[in-house]
């Protein structure tokens, strides 16, 4: 399933880029994720709760950052599996400077399997969009809370 969209963050490009690479920020902003543990350069172990339709479960897996071209783009690869199935997301994030703010464009592919695919597929598209929206909203909150360094 293809996903794509854009969200504007009220910080300059360089600042947006470093926020999006910060595991603590990512952990706080990823819905259902309590923490990210670094296991290698640009690779983190994650635990994430997710609910789709009547199915909810804990996913364990990794978050990986690849193809970094600071401050304009990088790829975010999220893989997780749990009792209710597995998910894999691979997205390219492009940061476009807009005066004092930054437009973050994302496009990628989400795959799910197992019970969540058979039961929740109708809602996965909507759920993915919702989760991404929540992610950026949280990020915006973080930005509002943290004055620029």
């Amino acid at each position: 399933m293809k996903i794509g969209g854009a969200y504007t963050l009220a910080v300059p490009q360089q600042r947006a880029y470093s926020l999006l690479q910060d595991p603590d920020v990512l952990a706080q902003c990823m819905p259902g994720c309590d923490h990210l543990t670094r296991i290698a350069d640009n690779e983190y172990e994650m635990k994430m709760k997710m609910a789709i339709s009547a199915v909810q479960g804990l996913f364990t897996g990794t978050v990986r950052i690849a193809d970094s071209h600071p401050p304009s783009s990088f790829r975010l690869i999220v893989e997780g599996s749990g009792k209710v199935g597995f998910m894999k997301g691979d997205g390219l994030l492009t940061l476009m400077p807009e005066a004092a703010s930054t437009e973050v464009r994302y496009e990628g592919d989400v795959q799910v399997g197992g019970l969540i695919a058979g039961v929740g597929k109708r809602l996965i598209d909507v759920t993915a969009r919702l989760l991404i929206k929540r992610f950026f909203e949280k990020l915006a909150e973080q930005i509002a809370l943290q004055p620029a360094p």
Partner: protein
Amino acid sequence: MATTITKPDTLVGKRIKRKEDPRLITGTATYVDDIQMPGMHHACILRSPHAAARIRSINTHAAAGHPGVVAVFTGADVAGVGPVPCGASLPGLRVPHHSILAKDRVYFVGHPVAVVVARDRYIATDALDLIEVDYDVLPAVADPEKALAPGAPAVHPEWPDNIAFTYHQEGGEPDKAFAEAEVVVKQRITSQRLIPTAMETRGVVAEHRAGQLTIWSSTQIPHLMRTLVAMMLGVPENLLRVVTPEVGGGFGSKLNVYAEEALMGFVAMKIGKPVKWIESRRENYLCTIHGRGHVDYYEIAARKDGTVLGLKLKLIQDLGAYHQLLTPAIPTLSVLMMPGLYRFRNVSADIIGAFTNCVPTDAYRGAGRPEATHGVERMMDLLAVELKADPAEIRLKNFIGADEFPYATATGLSYDSGDYAKPLKKALDIVDYHHLRQEQARAKAAGRLMGVGLSTYGEICAFGPSPATPAGGWESATVKVEPTGKVTVMTGASPHGQGEETTFAQIAADELGVTMDDVTVIHGDTAVVQYGIGTFGSRGTAVGGPALYFAIQELKKKIVKFGAMLLDSDDVSFSGGLCVCNKSGKTVPLAAIAGASYRAMKLPAGEQPGMMATYFWEPPNFAFPFGAHIAVTEIDRDTGQVAIKRYVAVDDCGKIINPLLVDGQVHGGVVQGIGQALYEQAVYDDNGQLLTGELTDYAIPKASMVPWIESSHTETPSPVNPLGVKGVGEAGTIGCSPAVVNSVVDALSHLGVRHIDMPLTPERIWKLISAGGRA
């Protein structure tokens, strides 16, 4: 060939309510899940979430240690169990080894990987989550045409082309016919993957006690299952008993031998306790066979006057990852029936069986014939459109004549009997076809989208002569008159909802001159009933019925001998439940004759005591029912919703034993046909994930989605058997989907629509209307 007159003095031919229904509608019937036993354990199966993956490792330690769990088995534990059998054989068929639990690789989502046995089902389910499987996920392919494309992921690495078999059949001179044709019409036509959706999912109970293994299974074929599971488990067949309690629908999905049937036998032998496995609905959708799965490329050759000359078919069958019992044989039935009811003397067909990373396809109500009928009936409509001819006229012009039977088809069959114009003309009369077309013209002028769709189907049923079947095509019956005069019938056909407890009681009661209440029909227990084949392919009445008839004829000889002895006469006949001395007029009733046969104070010369006969009847040919269905539809221009305004089914299934049951079969069949035409489709995504994994996403028709079905009949007896019966279990499904699709295409034809693939969802129709008919 005249309509058979129902004799008022016989039970055969009467609308009689089913003997089996009171227990079915009062909740007193016993299904597999109703079986309770002391010490019974429960099994749940871990299934692959991936369509293709290597299994690096399986860790069952935590699951095995979970409180209440008694055993966990994986592929390594069942290495000694034989593979899930494929009964079909075709030249060069590639048969993958189908282990009952995955060994080092999984091939479809739902592939069984491990089984947990626990005190109760909930503990077993919880423990499933504790099994850790390390998968190396591989690319998968879920579409048969994509599987055949170069570079596609190999479902089985040993066969990178994903081709399980190819099969060619031709008759006459197809190339010449096409070269000489004045008109050639071509169309790609699909018959989508469907999920049979029996109301009762599968279920197995197994018990191993004192060296005897008993398996209760919701199956259509208890005896064949016994033989095959005994071979898989290496258990002597005479120490394996298979019991089929009530079966809540099969539609072909239980005409199979599944991994779980052998697996539960294995578990019961290992743990020394009874074990139960009940399939969940989600498992049923993932792991029980699917049906259809055709991509067909048709070409029809004709003269300008509408005379058909030839038919060509390239058929791509989505087989799934494995062959279940009959998987590769199903599309060959489509080829056999591809000429339909028409005088196609020149035909050519090529099948390509394609492996995909999906659950196997196999027999589903109609099994190959709905696909064939959909194809030829769509093609006849396309030809009619091409020639601007009336679809009824073009059919009547090309029907095999009523005086041409037995008719040898170009595909090598011998159609037994028929009068194909008769049901069509009757259906046209019922809908008042001429006026209907006028009404359609008025509707069109008023901007409404109204369609009239015809389907005239022929089907092959009463499977079948043994040389044409993988496991024997005969059927068996035993009839006993008990010492009190009550009659017990044992049929090998194992009916499961078709109503043979009623129809066989009608036959036996008529033949023996007793009441229906005096007759009990027993089936579905290999320890009680003589070997039989089972119920599928509309064969229960058409093959099992004659077996019963002949068993009764054997028994009657004995009854007459005992009657003659008791009446002290050499001129005795048996009728109406009495032996009559034709000289003195003295009589002796059946109960007295039976009693005397068991008491055996005196025996007729050369006779054994008792009153029982068994007959194994081998049919000399298939039987070929036929009929005509008409669907009148109206389409909502704004939403694309199809409404079936009228549905007329005129079916000829030969002699009718019980019109009420025949109507029930037609109704059920038509509903499943409407399901295929309008609503149902098993959808896999590109990674082999089943997206229609439960009933919220897989749309079987609800009562509100089904029109009033106007069902009537013509009766052309079959010469193949003494009852003149043909079979009607699948007719409704076979006749239905082309009638509905032809009707919708007819409604949209002025927009330039030639063909629409099923299911005709509102979205699909709306897009066509919105695009002005362009797909």
